[in-house]
């Protein structure tokens, strides 16, 4: 398919923007100025000011001499780029590939987009109308190459669509500046009397190169399409993306749901054909007033199950505020992975952790309660009880370490050991009785001690001597004494868990 580009030129970008922000300035003569070598230089002048002869690059003092009531507004460097960026993002509703063309233009790659609006003329008309409604005076053109598209708004008849392959004919009447040449080359061409591109385009290439340098030929080739030129998109285009423009702005939750479901169906169909599944998805809603709302979901395993993904989005739909309406939905899958081939089964065997329904359940739980609430534990090679397990998030992670069963471990472990009062007869003997939460427990049976050293390369602190004790009611506890037995000093005893 032949590539098509649209170039949009904002002849009064800064002043139009300022009038949009402050409508009172519409009829005023005002200029934007920036300090330069100790004086103020005009960077943009309003239409009223321009009619009185004020131009860009003039000193503010000279301009004041022309219009006594001239308003001077400070310009900020880089402001025009920021405005262009915002306009470029706004223009994503027309095509996914948009780029800024500093200082005062936008470039859109519209290959395969125009037919959605019913033809190239209608499409271009729509862009111009929408921008005019916003308040910008624009000129736009469409052609096969960036060079040709750039030249039309600035030097040709607009709005103009140059049919495929006819950019050469359009170039004939244009001045040399339409080729995006440096001003020095343009001046030299003018001096030689070559005021129209048609007058030198037929010259031999070697002559042109010798007289005007390589750049001339490059620009010429870029105009005609012999040389490829790439566009640097504002937002990188996700390889997995679906778009749904709406004829009428959507304002209801039901409408959003229908749009989302349709997008998911097409995306999932594509993913399942390529045997891929998405790990995260973003739904972007472009609103009529130019704002963008977005929802994000993540899954624990690659999935292309429409219903499951829809459920994950469903709970978040009420957070969207459509305001005046949403006119474009874009669904992107930034993270896509290969999906594990799934064996279909006739009967429903409890498949354990491999079961897809469990993974989907966990996605739903995490979607509602937030990340970090769901985890599993794998054994870790540590004796210190708090560190003997390590939490993992993935359902499929495995480890070579096996669970130790040669030591008794309590089924309930307190997250922090709680201090207890203990009466112990002699060193290294289990306690006779202990007081925990105000209740005295008489120890009937005991096992121990099991000494667990603190891992000095990881932490500071004393070792623990653990005892398994059973009291007179039959309850079993895990107690420990911190550190060595030191004669006269009282010892710190703690309860750390309960046995079944």
């Amino acid at each position, binding site marked *: 398919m032949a590539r098509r580009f649209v170039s949009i030129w904002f002849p009064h970008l800064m002043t139009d923007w300022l009038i949009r922000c402050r409508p009172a300035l519409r009829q005023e003569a005002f200029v934007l100025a920036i300090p330069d070598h100790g004086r103020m230089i005009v960077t943009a002048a309003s239409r009223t000011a321009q009619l009185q002869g004020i131009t860009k690059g003039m000193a503010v003092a000279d301009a004041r001499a022309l219009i006594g009531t001239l308003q001077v507004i400070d310009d900020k460097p880089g402001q025009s780029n920021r405005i262009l960026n915002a306009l470029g993002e706004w223009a994503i509703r027309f095509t996914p590939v948009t780029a800024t063309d500093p200082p005062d233009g936008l470039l859109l790659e519209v290959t395969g987009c125009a037919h959605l609006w019913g033809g190239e003329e209608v499409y271009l008309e729509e862009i111009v109308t929408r921008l005019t409604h916003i308040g910008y005076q624009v000129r736009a053109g469409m052609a096969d190459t960036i060079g040709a598209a750039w030249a039309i708004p600035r030097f040709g008849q607009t709005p103009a669509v140059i049919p495929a392959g006819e950019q050469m004919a359009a170039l004939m009447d244009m001045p040399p500046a339409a080729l995006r040449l440096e001003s020095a080359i343009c001046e030299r061409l003018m001096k030689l009397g070559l005021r129209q591109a048609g007058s030198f385009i037929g010259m031999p290439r070697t002559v042109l190169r010798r007289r005007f340098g390589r750049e001339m030929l490059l620009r010429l080739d870029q105009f005609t399409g012999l040389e490829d030129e790439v566009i640097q998109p504002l937002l990188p285009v996700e390889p997995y993306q679906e778009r749904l423009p709406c004829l009428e702005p959507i304002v209801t939750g039901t409408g959003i749901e229908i749009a989302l479901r349709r997008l998911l169906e097409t995306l999932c169909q594509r993913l399942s054909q390529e045997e891929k599944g998405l790990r995260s998805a973003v739904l972007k809603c472009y609103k009529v007033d130019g704002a963008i709302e977005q929802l994000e979901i993540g899954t624990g395993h690659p999935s292309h199950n429409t219903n499951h993904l829809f459920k994950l989005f469903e709970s978040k739909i009420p957070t969207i505020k459509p305001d005046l309406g949403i006119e474009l939905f874009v669904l992107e899958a930034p993270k896509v992975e290969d999906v594990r081939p799934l064996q279909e089964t006739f009967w429903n065997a*409890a498949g354990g*952790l491999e079961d897809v329904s469990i993974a989907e359940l966990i996605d739903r739980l995490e979607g509602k309660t937030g990340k970090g609430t769901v985890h599993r534990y794998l054994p870790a090679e540590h004796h210190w009880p708090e560190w003997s397990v390590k939490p993992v998030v993935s359902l499929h992670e495995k480890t070579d370490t096996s669970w130790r069963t040669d030591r008794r471990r309590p089924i309930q472990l307190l997250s922090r050991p709680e201090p207890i009062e203990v009466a112990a007869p002699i060193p290294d003997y289990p306690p006779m009785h202990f007081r925990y939460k105000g209740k005295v427990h008489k120890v009937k049976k005991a096992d121990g001690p099991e000494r667990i050293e603190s891992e000095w390369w990881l932490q500071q602190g004393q070792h623990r001597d653990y005892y398994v004790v059973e009291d007179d009611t*039959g309850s079993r506890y895990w107690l420990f004494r911190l550190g060595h037995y030191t004669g006269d000093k009282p010892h710190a005893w703690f309860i750390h868990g309960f046995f*079944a």
Partner: protein
Amino acid sequence: MPAEKAAIIAGLQREILLLQGFKQAGNTSVDMGLGRVTAAFPNATFPTGAIHEFVSAAAEHTAATAGFIGGLLNALMQGGGACIWISTCRTLFPPALKTFGIEPERLIFVDLKREKDVLWAMEEALKCEGLAAVIGEVKDVSFTASRRLQLAVEQSRVTGFIIRRESTVFNTTACVSRWRITSLASEPEDGLPGVGYPRWNVELLKIRNGKPGIWQIEWSTGRFRLMDEPSSSAPPELIRKIG
């Protein structure tokens, strides 16, 4: 002759249960290894695909309850099933589950902030057919909430356990049973010093279409053992090296 009578009575009981609207949970009966206790259940099978409620008054009893549930999960998770443990203040220590024959990595833990979320998560999890069991730790559960859980399992046939920690109000719930597990003094084997196998006083306070009862059960050599049964002569699986 008495055997014949017993068979007739058992048949009649089954018919009565059917008339009372009790449906057999398919043909997927799981042998919990509870021996004599199974006689207390309707149709003499442990009700899977239902919600069981466990009440515990203190942390010690919660530990005993967790141990008993561990024994039940051992049977339910045979064949590689996974289960979910949902709680707000979980103290369960996964390595200890290995004692009850469960692979601790096949348990998925969900730690939430509010009890309301626990009940919601339980309901969601109970609808998931791929799970072997769902365990939820809550303080209180209303009749409506328990009814919702019961309705969820009726579709999916997943077994659910509710542990009511330090709960004092025993309201009516839609759960199929209510248990209370408390610790009993253990008996060390062969008169050796130290602490023996976990032993519990298992009270089945309520059972729909069944007979409540009290049993003393010990967990040893990887299975439940009722106390007045003769001890198995099999060597213990666990070799304890303490000291």
